[in-house]
């Protein structure tokens, strides 16, 4: 039975890969041969299929969680699942849900190909640049920290000036940080349940392996700094935290917790780290909450799986935030009812979960 489920899961991921190519942008000349335009003409179908896929993804995820809870999933099997998930999703189209990967490539190109300062020069200033045809933040200077820009030199040079090779080089680069984050979370928790929660969580998988968001890279360095902080390696710890917030500035908010880390009780350490990242996640709502921002707090939330409220609210967020994409998929606009529906779907499940947990607790008394 388990083998059959594993096979079905991998088949499902292959289908997800195929589905992602329905979203190929018409302006990407490099992928013209596989462009269908299906997502532009069949918005209803695409949004429905995507919703169904997210639900199936979560069914698999909860099945794996159940297996590991019942001690029916060995560490070897989890590693196998993580490795194959990474491998299969590596071949997905990265701009299915977000165009950020093009921004990463464009910024790297400004810095390493054109030799300009990406904090001063925008991609749009290179009028003959082919990436301008399909990237969405061409009129912005670099949005991320300098350490991230420095790191992107690796996948950029490994792309050998070929766009498709560069695109997948970036995917491999970010995926490797996802694998490293899984490894580190297991090293920190020594808990297979935590490893499944982080390594097979659909939101983390979609945002890190399909969309290749750099949040997982930032969180890897944050986890590494926590790892050293727990082992009294203060210098290394602060150094990696510094690297982390030089990728994306969100983990700067871990600093207050780091400063009082010794005074916090052992079993509450991850709780405080979770709370600080959760607070900054909620604060980002003043601008816009993007689904991949959830990675900031999910990693710490799943390192404390004994706290049921945190666990279930985090799982609810993992589920609901993936539905934020649907209004745009369906309406094709970020205006009108889209923002309201997006906010509603983001918070409905977490609120409902909270209310359920509150009443369930009362009834159990």
């Amino acid at each position, binding site marked *: 039975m388990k083998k059959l489920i594993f096979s079905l899961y991998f088949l499902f991921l292959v289908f997800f890969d195929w589905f992602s190519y329905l979203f190929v942008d018409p302006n990407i000349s490099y992928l013209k041969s596989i462009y269908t335009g299906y997502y532009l003409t069949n918005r209803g179908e695409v949004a429905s299929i995507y919703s169904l896929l997210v639900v199936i993804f979560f069914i698999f995820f909860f099945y794996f969680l159940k297996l590991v809870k019942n001690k029916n999933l060995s560490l070897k099997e989890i590693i196998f699942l993580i490795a194959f998930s990474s491998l299969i999703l590596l071949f997905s189209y990265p701009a299915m849900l977000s165009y950020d990967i093009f921004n990463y490539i464009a910024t790297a190109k400004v810095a390493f190909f*054109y*030799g*300009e*300062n990406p904090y*001063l*020069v925008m991609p749009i200033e*290179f*009028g*003959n640049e082919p990436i301008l045809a399909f990237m969405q933040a061409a009129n912005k200077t670099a949005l991320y920290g300098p350490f991230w820009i420095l790191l992107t030199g690796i996948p950029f040079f490994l792309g050998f000036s070929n766009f498709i090779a560069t695109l997948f080089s970036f995917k491999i680069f970010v995926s490797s940080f996802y694998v490293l984050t899984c490894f580190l979370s297991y090293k920190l928790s020594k808990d297979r349940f935590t490893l499944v929660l982080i390594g097979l969580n659909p939101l983390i998988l979609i945002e890190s392996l399909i969309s290749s968001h750099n949040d997982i890279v930032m969180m890897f360095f944050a986890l590494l700094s926590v790892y050293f902080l727990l082992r009294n390696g203060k210098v290394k710890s602060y150094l990696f935290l510094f690297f982390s917030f030089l990728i994306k500035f969100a983990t700067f908010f871990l600093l207050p917790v780091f400063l009082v880390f010794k005074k916090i009780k052992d079993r509450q350490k991850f709780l405080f780290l979770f709370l600080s990242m959760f607070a900054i996640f909620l604060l980002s709502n003043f601008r816009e909450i993007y689904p991949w921002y959830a990675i900031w707090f999910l990693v710490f939330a799943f390192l404390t799986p004994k706290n049921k409220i945190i666990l279930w609210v985090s799982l609810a967020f993992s589920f609901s935030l993936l539905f934020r994409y649907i209004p745009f998929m369906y309406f094709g606009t970020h205006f009108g009812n889209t923002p309201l529906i997006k906010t509603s779907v983001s918070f409905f499940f977490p609120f409902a979960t909270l209310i359920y947990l509150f009443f369930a607790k009362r009834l159990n008394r």
Partner: protein
Amino acid sequence: MRKILLLVTLLLTFFNLFAFSATADSSYVLPYPSSMPGSSFYKLGLLKEYILKYWYFGDFGQFTYNLKESDRYLVEAKTLFEYKQYLLAYQSLRKSNQYFKNTAPYLLKAKEHGKDIKDKSIILKEAGRKHLQVLNILKSELPSEFTWTPEKDSSQSLEISRLLKASIDLREKYEKVNF
């Protein structure tokens, strides 16, 4: 009511006329004057100028840096000339010229490196035109020569008109360059 409507329409038309005449010369905007020599902030400004030289790396970066500094020193020179601080103004204008001189070579370098310089060359020409406006006003208002006599030093002759001519020639030369 009719009278009020007529008055508002007339006023709006009047202000619109002014809006047109304000943008007729050049769309390029020079910066506000920053701190002036003698102030301690000016020394900080010099430090900033030195650091920014490295921050603005790359052909486009250096082009922008040199043009910005040229603008800044031109405004500084204009202000100092207005306050009859001829020696300091003279030095600022020389600096502005030096920075302006550096712009085109970086643009040509960018072209050599395969970068599209169409927009930047338009910016440079617009900037040059704006500089010329300022320089021509200064030319009509300033003495051709001035002898600057500091309190504790020997006097110095400042060939203002010659410097202004060189400044104008440089801008005109760059305006004719086909990038």
